[in-house]
């Protein structure tokens, strides 16, 4: 049995990265302020002194340059792990993501694949300035050729990050910064994998299935517990990877309960809740007892923090959504 450490989610990022850098010399981390400063959230703290300046690289302030050079590094046989300081600043590099990172394999008929992991702190809830709170996972999930991970626990974070680095294809790894330090969990030392593309059932239940991921997993579980006292038994499924989605687990849970609620903090329109709703329509129409409820952010820019509590789904809104589905 391996030893464990009690880690926060952001420490698990660091641990996952360090573990894989130790095992594989091809892994390099690069980004703004990740070296000496250890990253603005300290996700790479101490890695530069451990692995040196050529493996943990402080880059110029240039997202297109960071992602574009990681694409080049990967074509050259490295396994780059670029960090974008906040997911709200991925857009200067968006062209590199959608024009190059996602399609190198297709373009070169698999002569090249890009084993790279693009990491970024993501999502709202930390009272940050403008452009520091977005959740745009749908952009990346919509882009063929990418895998998109949004972990919700320290254990998963480390295992998923290691799997992502070992994956031959490019992965966008979105780290919910609201829960970077919200709680701790025992995480094994050394390496282990949590497979990409598999959901986890966080709470078993028989009345309704609630699908969620990332930071929203916690208010969702909270809502499920409080409704349990009223006799509503909700199953909570944490997707963990939003692309490719674990369609089997979603459908299986829905066939058991016949009712579904999807919770995410991203805007409602064009969000992944719509995708899940369509999936259930296609695969399990005859099991459907009630319309699928979507509890999400709104179709407005994420507001500055005086209003952000209104924007983010909370346990109260999740409870409403669940009741709506159950009482239909």
């Amino acid at each position, binding site marked *: 049995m391996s030893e464990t450490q009690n880690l926060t989610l952001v420490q698990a990022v660091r641990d996952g990265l360090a573990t894989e850098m130790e095992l594989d010399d091809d892994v390099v981390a690069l980004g*703004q*302020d990740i*070296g*000496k*400063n*250890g990253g*603005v959230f300290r996700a790479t703290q101490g890695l530069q002194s451990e692995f040196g300046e050529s493996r943990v690289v*402080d880059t*110029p*302030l*240039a*997202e*297109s*340059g960071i992602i574009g050079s990681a694409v080049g590094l990967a074509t050259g046989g490295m396994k780059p792990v670029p960090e974008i300081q906040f997911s*709200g*600043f991925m*857009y*200067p590099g968006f062209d590199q993501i959608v024009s190059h990172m996602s399609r190198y394999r297709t373009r070169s008929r698999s002569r090249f694949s890009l084993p790279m992991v693009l990491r970024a702190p993501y999502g709202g809830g930390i*009272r*940050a*300035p*403008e*452009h*520091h709170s977005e959740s745009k996972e749908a952009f990346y999930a919509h882009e063929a050729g990418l895998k998109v991970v949004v972990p919700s626990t320290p254990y998963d974070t480390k295992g998923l990050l290691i799997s992502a680095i070992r994956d031959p294809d490019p992965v966008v790894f979105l780290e919910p910064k609201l829960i970077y330090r919200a709680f701790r969990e025992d995480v094994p030392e050394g390496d282990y994998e949590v497979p990409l593309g598999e959901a986890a059932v966080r709470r078993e239940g028989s009345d309704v299935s609630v699908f969620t991921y990332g930071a929203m997993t916690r208010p969702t579980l909270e809502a499920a517990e409080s409704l349990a006292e009223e006799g509503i038994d909700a199953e909570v499924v944490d997707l963990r990877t939003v692309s490719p989605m674990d369609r089997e687990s979603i459908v299986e849970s829905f066939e058991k309960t016949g009712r579904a609620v999807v919770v995410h903090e991203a805007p*409602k*329109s064009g969000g992944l809740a719509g995708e899940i709703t369509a999936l259930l329509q296609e695969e399990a129409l005859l099991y459907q007892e009630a319309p699928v409820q979507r509890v999400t952010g*709104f*179709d*407005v*820019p994420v*507001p*500055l*923090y*005086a*209003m*952000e*509590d*209104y*924007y983010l789904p*909370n346990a*109260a*809104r999740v409870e*409403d959504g669940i009741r709506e589905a159950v009482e239909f």
Partner: protein
Amino acid sequence: MSTIQRDPENRVQVLDEDGNLVGERPDIDDETLLDIYRDMKLARHFDERAVSLQRQGRMGTYPPLSGQEGAQIGSAHALAEDDWMVPSYREHGAAVVRGLPLKQTLLYWMGYEAGNEVPEDANILPVAVPIASQIPHAAGLAWSWKLQSIDDDAAADAAAGDTDTAGICYFGDGATSEGDFHEGLNFAGVYDVPMVFFCNNNQWAISVPREKQTASETLAQKADAYGFEGVQVDGMDPLAVYKVTQDALEKARNPGEDQLRPTMIEAVQYRFGAHTTADDPTVYRDEDEVERWKAKDPIPRLEAFLRSEGLLDDETVDEIEETIEQRVSDAIDEAEAEPRPEPEEMFEHAYADLPPALREQRDEFVETVNRHGKDAFLEEE
């Protein structure tokens, strides 16, 4: 030779570190000199109060400016009344000079959308947080003036458009690495627009020092690549900054033959405090570096000069300080008295006309909030 046409290695300076006149005194009247002093003091005091508000949990993350007053205030005062300012997120001092009330700046960093509302009569764009993204905007803004000034007869030749309006666009040393910087300056050169690009080289982009940002010897020399002049100025010398900016704005309006309108100014300076209140600079920089730069502080420097010119004495300094303290604390009171936004305000500005489905989202949400009560949504401060 104008101040601008010079070897970028050769930094423009008017006052030395002790406030002695060492360069050509800019064309500047006594009242403006005193205004620059007052506004620098105001910016410094505002900054100190803002950092302390953040520490007390009364404001969110805030980017301090102390050390950079000379560059901000000196350059902003060189603008003519109708000129425009395109700020980054750190130009709180320059913004006040342009007419943005202090209350707005406070509100913005307190997390209120209302802080971004620029008054009709203030020619300033809202704060830009994504680094360098405002630079192409500035190029486009100035281009629009040229396009709009073309009369119909001469419509064919866009480049011939002439305008009396000019602008200034601020950004940091880190911003010069972004693609947007290159694209913005390139457009500015190609369309020959009346915009001054003002780089606040405060030595650090969070933890990355200027030398790791670019292998160029100076940032000013980057202008070469776009076909216009670059000039380096002592950014902690408010009078040198005023002079260089004034010359650059003059050239933007009335370029000489074979001269392009844009200029890139690299103002060499230092930010005394953290990058933002969320940052801990002791991780990456030495305290003696900070001390060395503090010796160049723009405020005592101008104060010494003004005293030697007989424009300032102890009494006036006290008076100025009192007025400033009052003004800042009034603005804080006003900002803190601002009522918390109502949930429906979130929907107000997403579209000119709220689409029906979004109206539904809004109405449903307002009903939800009413049902649960606001306390169910708002976390404790």
